Every structure is written in C-alpha cells, then in structure tokens.
C-alpha cells in the first residue's frame, strides 16, 4: 500500500450470492453477508453484474478473487457471472454441501456451514 492510504494496490475480494427466493437462496445470501461482515471478502451486487452496471462489472474485473454462492442447481449466480464474461471464479453450490431446496432453513448452523466453505474458497 502507498502512504496516501488509498486502495490503489488493494484489489478487493468479492463474494456474490444468488440470494434466491428459496430457503437455500436465503442461506446463501446470509452466508455472503456474514463473510462480508467478518471482512473475509466484500459481498458485491449480483444484480449489478446482470444489469451490466459498469462500475460493478469493472470492479469485479479488477478483483483479486471472486467466489459465487448458489443455493440450488439452477446456478443463477454462476450463470450471471458467466454471461457477463467472467471465468475462473470459485463456485460453491449448496446442493454440493448436502443442502436441499425446500429442506434447508436459514438456521445459524446452516449459514455457518456455508461461511466456512466460502472462507476455505478464499484461502485457496
């Protein structure tokens, strides 16, 4: 970092969540917010990627690392990033963690399981 205290050399780490309507979307969303609050990465707006908001797209291009969380096998977060031209990001799908759509309440335990998985993805 330079002495001016700016973020010139601090490429951010971003986590995107599908934040879908189902229970698994809620778990994914809450996990992303928790990771963001803990400072592991910053939760960033998937809708901004879908809407091609230039600042959000360019900031994501400049990110040091990106992790996408999808609640179910529809993989909307992954597809949204891919449609915008992003590749090489880490992808976590809650189905892969044994969480089934319609059977996974957003309990602290479930959210924490996803938080751990996201933290591991960022530590790779």
């Amino acid at each position: 970092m330079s002495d001016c205290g700016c973020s010139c050399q601090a490429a951010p780490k971003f986590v995107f969540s599908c934040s879908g309507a189902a229970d698994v979307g809620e778990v994914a969303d809450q996990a992303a917010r928790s990771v963001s609050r803990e400072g592991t990465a910053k939760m960033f707006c998937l809708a901004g990627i879908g809407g091609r908001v230039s600042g959000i797209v360019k900031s994501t291009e400049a990110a040091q690392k990106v992790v996408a969380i999808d609640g179910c096998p529809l993989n909307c977060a992954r597809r949204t990033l891919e449609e915008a031209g992003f590749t090489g990001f880490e992808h976590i799908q809650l189905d892969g963690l044994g969480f089934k759509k319609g059977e996974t309440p957003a309990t602290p335990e479930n959210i924490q399981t996803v938080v751990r998985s996201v933290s591991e993805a960022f530590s790779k």
Partner: protein
Amino acid sequence: MKILVMGPGCPKCEQAEKTVRDAVAEAGIAADIEKVKDFQEIAKYGVFSTPAVVIDGEVKVVGKAPSKKDVLGWLK
C-alpha cells in the same frame, strides 16, 4: 464530455489523471475533467478500487492507470 478520474491522490491516481489530460489534449476535444477523491462519491459508481476513470457516467477502468491508447479509444 465529462471525465471523472477517481483516486485519493497516490502516484497511480496522479498518473491516471495525467494520462487522461494528455489524451484529451492529443484528441483535441472539449472535455470537463474532474478529480474525485472522496471514497463515498467513488463508491456511488460501484467502484471499489482506484484509480478509476469514468466517462459520461460509464466506468471504463478500475484498479489501474489506463494507457493513453486506451483513453484515446474511449474518447472516440
């Protein structure tokens, strides 16, 4: 044309501003170039690392100083 050069004032941000001014002079166009240092203002554009360059509301680059060739391309 309105150009915003975003960054709090580090060498890379200064370089970005100089490159933009040089490119605008070379292109011979009229442009209002403004330096944005306040990070709250910067964040309003969805920009989370600097330097960044915004032309007429569209973010062109984030996290690095662009080349003059890049800027000339954006000015067309």
